[in-house]
C-alpha cells in the first residue's frame, strides 16, 4: 500500500472541526490481496475484512492510534484511495498514517515477522505526549476547550484568549512559582509543613556520608536516605550501619541527601486537585499501586489536602505514611512524607475505575475557574470582510472589550498592532485565541485558503458572509459557527438547518453579528 501524498489541514477544515491528515493512496497492485493482509494484521484489526484498500488503510491507522493510546476522532473515505484521518487528543494522524502505510505494505507483501505490529505501536507511542498530557488533552476536548500544544516550552493551551489557561503536565498557569520552587526540595517542604504544625516525617539535610551517619544516629540509629528533590519513587529501605549509610548516601549521587526517620509502613499516595483529595493509592513495594481511595480514612484525605494547600499547589501528589491509613488521625499517626507538585497521573489513571473522570477533575483544578474557556469569535468572508470586521471591532471596543483583529492589513490585540502583513484565517486566528489579553476576536477569512488548509481553530461563534463566496465555503463556515451565519449581499444560499440572519450592508452585518454574540 503506497502513500502518494499526505496533506494536513488545520483545525476547522472542510472535513472536521479537528485537524486532519488526508492521505492519497496509490491504486492497489493487481495481485494485492487485502483479505490476506487483513488476516496478517488480525492481532491489531478485529472484525471482517474491509472490502476496499482505502478502508483497510483507515482501519489500520485507527487501530494503531488506539493501541498507541490516542484513538483517532474518526476516519473517512472521501474518494477512491483518499482517506481522511481525524486527530485524536493529540496530533497523531500524520504519524499514524505513515506507520499504517509501512505496516500495510509489509502485510500485503507476505507474512509479518514476529513483533512487527508491536514495534509499530511502540514507535507511534513514542511520538506522543505523556499519558498525563494525553489524559488532560482528552478531558479538554470533552469540555470543548479546543486543547492544543503551545509554542515550545509553554505546555498545552486550553480555551481562548483571556479565558485560556496554560498547563505544563499538571502544573497550572496559576501554580505559584514560589510553590514550585519550594516543592523541589524535601527539606523546604518539610520545614514549611512543620512550621504550620502539619505532621511530617522528621528529616534533615546531610552534605557528607559522615553527616548522614550523625543524622541517622540522631534519629535513633535507623533512617532512610533519599534525594533532596522528590523526583524518585517510593520509600527506600531503612539503613543503620555506617557502611549502609555511606552506600545509601553514595547511591543518591548528589552533594546532599535527605536523612529521614524510617516510615512505619509503605506510603499511600493521595492525588489532591483543586483542594480536594480525589484519589489514593497504596504504594506497596514491588507491586502495582492499588486504588485505596475508599480505604483511606477521611482524616488521611484531609491531611493530604492541607499539605497541598500549605504548599499552595493546584495539583499535588501527597505521600502519607501511617500505622493504619484507615483509622482516624488520632490513632493512625499519619504524617506527610512527600509533596510533589505537577505529579504524573499515570499511576492514578492506571489504578482507578474511572480514569476519565479523574483526569477531568485534575483539568478542572488547572483551569482554575476559567469556565467554558471561550471568547466570542466572528469570522468574516467575502469582499466586504474588511469593512464588516472594522465595524464590529469598533463596536466591541466601544464596549470596553480588548478586541483581537486579524485581517489582510495585519493583526492587533487590545489596540496594539502586532503584525502588518496578511493575517487572514489560519495565519491570524490561532494567535488571537492564544493571546492572553484578547477577550473577543474578529478574523477576516480568505475563502480559498480556508477551503484548502482550514481555519486554524475548531470553532467560531458567528460567520459573516458579505459578498460572493462559493457555496461549499459558505457551508463550511456555517458548519464551524456555533451560533449563526450573517448573510450579507451576495452571499450564497445556506442549508436550511443553519440559523441565518440577513443583512443589507456591512454596517448591518456587523450589527447583526454583534447582536448574535450578545452583550459582554
Amino acid at each position: 500500500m503506497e502513500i502518494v501524498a499526505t496533506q494536513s489541514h488545520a483545525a476547522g477544515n472542510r472535513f472536521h472541526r479537528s485537524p486532519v491528515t488526508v492521505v492519497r493512496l496509490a491504486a492497489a497492485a493487481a495481485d494485492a490481496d487485502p483479505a490476506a493482509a487483513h488476516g496478517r494484521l488480525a492481532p491489531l484489526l478485529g472484525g471482517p475484512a474491509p472490502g476496499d484498500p482505502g478502508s483497510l488503510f483507515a482501519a489500520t491507522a485507527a487501530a494503531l492510534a488506539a493501541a498507541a493510546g490516542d484513538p483517532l476522532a474518526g476516519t473517512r473515505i472521501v474518494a477512491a484511495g483518499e482517506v481522511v484521518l481525524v486527530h485524536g487528543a493529540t496530533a497523531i494522524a500524520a504519524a499514524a498514517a505513515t506507520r499504517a502505510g509501512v505496516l500495510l505494505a509489509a502485510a500485503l507483501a507476505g507474512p509479518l515477522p514476529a513483533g512487527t505490529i508491536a514495534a509499530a505501536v511502540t514507535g507511534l507511542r513514542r511520538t506522543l505526549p505523556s499519558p498525563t498530557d494525553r489524559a488532560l488533552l482528552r478531558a479538554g476536548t470533552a469540555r470543548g476547550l479546543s486543547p492544543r500544544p503551545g509554542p515550545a516550552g509553554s505546555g498545552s493551551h486550553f480555551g481562548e484568549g483571556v479565558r485560556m489557561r496554560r498547563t505544563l503536565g499538571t502544573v497550572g498557569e496559576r501554580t505559584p512559582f514560589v510553590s514550585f520552587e519550594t516543592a523541589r526540595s524535601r527539606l523546604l517542604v518539610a520545614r514549611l509543613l512543620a512550621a504550620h504544625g502539619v505532621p511530617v516525617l522528621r528529616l534533615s539535610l546531610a552534605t557528607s556520608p559522615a553527616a548522614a551517619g550523625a543524622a541517622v544516629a540522631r534519629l535513633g540509629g535507623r533512617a532512610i536516605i533519599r534525594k533532596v528533590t522528590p523526583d524518585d519513587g517510593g520509600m527506600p529501605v531503612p539503613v543503620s550501619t555506617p557502611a549502609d549509610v555511606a552506600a545509601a548516601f553514595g547511591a543518591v549521587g548528589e552533594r546532599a541527601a535527605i536523612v529521614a526517620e524510617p516510615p512505619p509502613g509503605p506510603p499511600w499516595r493521595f492525588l489532591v486537585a483543586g483542594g480536594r483529595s480525589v484519589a489514593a493509592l497504596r504504594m506497596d513495594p514491588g507491586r502495582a499501586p492499588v486504588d485505596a481511595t475508599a480505604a483511606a480514612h477521611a482524616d488521611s484525605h484531609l491531611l493530604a489536602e492541607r499539605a497541598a494547600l500549605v504548599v499552595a499547589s493546584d495539583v499535588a501528589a501527597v505521600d502519607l505514611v501511617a500505622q493504619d491509613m484507615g483509622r482516624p488521625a488520632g490513632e493512625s499517626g499519619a504524617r506527610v512524607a512527600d509533596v510533589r507538585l505537577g505529579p504524573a497521573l499515570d499511576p492514578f489513571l492506571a489504578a482507578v475505575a474511572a480514569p476519565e473522570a479523574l483526569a477531568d477533575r485534575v483539568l478542572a483544578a488547572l483551569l482554575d475557574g476559567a469556565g467554558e474557556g471561550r471568547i466570542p469569535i466572528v469570522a468574516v468572508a467575502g469582499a466586504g470582510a474588511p469593512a464588516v470586521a472594522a465595524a464590529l471591532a469598533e463596536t466591541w471596543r466601544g464596549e470596553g472589550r480588548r478586541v483581537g483583529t486579524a485581517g489582510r492589513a495585519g493583526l492587533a490585540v487590545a489596540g496594539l498592532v502586532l503584525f502588518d502583513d496578511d493575517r487572514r484565517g489560519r495565519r491570524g486566528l490561532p494567535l488571537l485565541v492564544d493571546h492572553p489579553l484578547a477577550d473577543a476576536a474578529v478574523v477576516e477569512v480568505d475563502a480559498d485558503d480556508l477551503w484548502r488548509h482550514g481555519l486554524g481553530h475548531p470553532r467560531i461563534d458567528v460567520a459573516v458572509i458579505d459578498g460572493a463566496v462559493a457555496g461549499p465555503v459558505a457551508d463550511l463556515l456555517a458548519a464551524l459557527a456555533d451560533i449563526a451565519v450573517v448573510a450579507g449581499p451576495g452571499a450564497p444560499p445556506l442549508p436550511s438547518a443553519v440559523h441565518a440572519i440577513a443583512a443589507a450592508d456591512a454596517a448591518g452585518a456587523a450589527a447583526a453579528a454583534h447582536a448574535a454574540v450578545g452583550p459582554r
Partner: protein
Amino acid sequence: MNGAAPVRILADGRLAAGNRLGGIAGLWARVAWSDATAIDEGALGRWLAEVDPNVASELALTPAPGPADAVAAFARVAAALMASGRSLAIVIDRETTPAGRSALVIVEEGRAVAPERVMAAAADLLAAAVAGLPAAGFRDRVADCGAPPIKAFLRYAYTLIPARLAARGAAARPALGQRGSLVGEGVGARLFLFTMGRGTGALGAAIAARKDACAALLSRFGLPVPRQLPVADADAAEAAAGAIGYPVVVKPADRSGGAGVAAGLAHAAEVRQAFARAAAVSRRIVVEEMLRGEDHRLTVIGGRMVAAALRVPPEVVGDGRRSVRALIDAVNADPQRGGSRSMLLPLVCDGETDRLLAAAGLTFASVPPAGMRVRLHSAANLTMGARPVDVTASVHPDNRAAAVHAAAIMGLDLAGIDFISPDIGRSWREIGGGICEVNREPGLLVHQVAEGGPDMAEACARHILAPAPLVPIVAVLGGGDADAAAQAIAAAMAESGLAVGLAAGRHLVAAGLRLSDPGPGDPLRVTRLVAHPAVEAVVAAVPPAAVVARGFGHGRADVALVAEPGAPDLAAATRIMAAIGAEVVDGSSPLDADLVRRIAARRPPS
C-alpha cells in the same frame, strides 16, 4: 566575657509578635550592667566599622532609647546587628531591687540568620569594643548571628516590601529562609519570595529563566525582540554574528543579573572573547542582534505598566582637570553610594572597563576633556554603579502596551521588561527598538533610586496583599475557664459556617485538622492557626502570663475576651492585646450571643 563587661546577660529569649513592642516579634534579655565603663560613642562606632561597616552605619542611625548608658549601647548594637536598613524598636526597663539592679531589654526582631545568638553577640561586641580587642576576631560573630549572606544593598531591598506591608498593618513573617515571607491570615495567608507572590506563575517563571525560549515566544506574537541564534562554540558564535550583522550581544540563555553578558561587540575577535566569558558561566550561549538605543526597564504589575526607568550605563563626565581615576573616586565619595541604607552602589571597574577605556584611547590616568562622557561599562547594571532616570510619564503607548502584552504572554503578573529604544517617547513600530529580556523577579531599586520614580515597594506590597482578607481573631484570656469559653465561641462560629482554628486545652485544631501542638501557652499555637490556609476564624485560649512572657503569637487580634478576671498578669496582657488592636471584652458572664455574631460578621470575603 569577664565580670568587667559593660553588660552581663542574665537570661534571654524570643518574644512572639504581640508583646510590649506591639504587633512585631522581638528578642529580650535581662541584663546586669556596670556604670564603671563609660561608653565612648565615637570609639564604639569606629571599632564596629572595622568589624562590619554596615553594622556601624546602622548603629549610627539607631537612636538611643532614653539615657545613653551601657544598656542602651547594648540594645543599639543588638538592633544594628539585625536592622539592614531600618531602625528597630527598642524598649528598656531599668529596675533596682534590694537584690541589685537589672534591666529588661526588648529589641524588635529584624533580619537575622540566628536571632537566638544576637543578644550574646551584642554583649560580646560591646565588651570587646570597650576593651579595644582586635576587631578582626569578631567578624565571624557578626556573620554568625546577624546579616544574611547577601550584598548589603540587596539586603536593604529585601526590607523594603516587608516594611511597606507592615505599614499597611500586615506584618510579614519569615518563611522558607531569609528571602521568603508569609503574610496575611488564614485563607488570606500567602507566601512570597521577594517580589514573587501568587501572581508569578511557575510556567511563566520557567520560561523567563530561558532567554531563548522567551524571545521565541514573544516573537511568535509579533512583539519586537532581537534576532537570536544559539551557538555551541566560538566559531559558531563568529558565524552567527556575521549572519546577524555587527554589533552583536553575546549572552548565556539561562543566567540572570548580567552574568556573562557582553554587548556592543563590533568584530569577530570580540565575539570570540565574549563567547569564552559567557561559556564560563553557562553552556547555553546565544548571539543576539544589538538593538539600537537606550536601555530601559519597564515594570508591569497586574496588567499595567507602573514604572519606567532609563538605565544609564556607569560613566563619568570629564572636567578637563581630573583623571578618570579621580573622577570615579569623586563619584564614589558620594555618601549616597554604599552604606547600609543606600540604594546606589559605587562605580566598579573590571576588565570591561579596561577595554572600554582602551577603545576610547584612555587610561585611568588620562584627563578627559570637559563634558566628555567616559563609559565604564556597556550594560547599565545597578551592581556596577549605574544610576537610572525615571521616564514613567513619557513612555509611548505602543511601548507601554508591548510591555503589558509581554508580561501577559509570559504568564507573569509582575514582570520587569528590558526595553531598548532610541527614544522611549516614540513607538517601537515607528523607530524600532524592542524587548531584550523579561525578568520574573524584577529589582525594585531601579525605580526606587530613579529620581521622581514611583514607590515600587509600595506597589509590590499592594499587589502581594490583594486580595488578602484578614480573619477574625479572638483571644480568650485566662486558665481553665478560658478553655471552656474558647470552645463555646469556636462552636458557635463553626455553626455560623466558619472554618475555625481553635487552641484550647489540649486542642490545637485548624478547620478540622489536628496540628502538631507545642503546648498550651506557647505562642506558636496562635501563629500556626493564623498561618493555616484553610482557617476563616481563630479562637485561642491563652494564659495572660504567657502573653506577657512569650508574646501572643500574632501581631493583630480583634477581640480579647477576659474569661478569668483574677488571672496573673491579666492587666499587662490586656494592655498588650489592646495595643495590637483587640477590643477587650468582659467574658466572665455567660457567652454573649451578640458578641459571637459580631465576631463572625468579620469573616473574610470568600
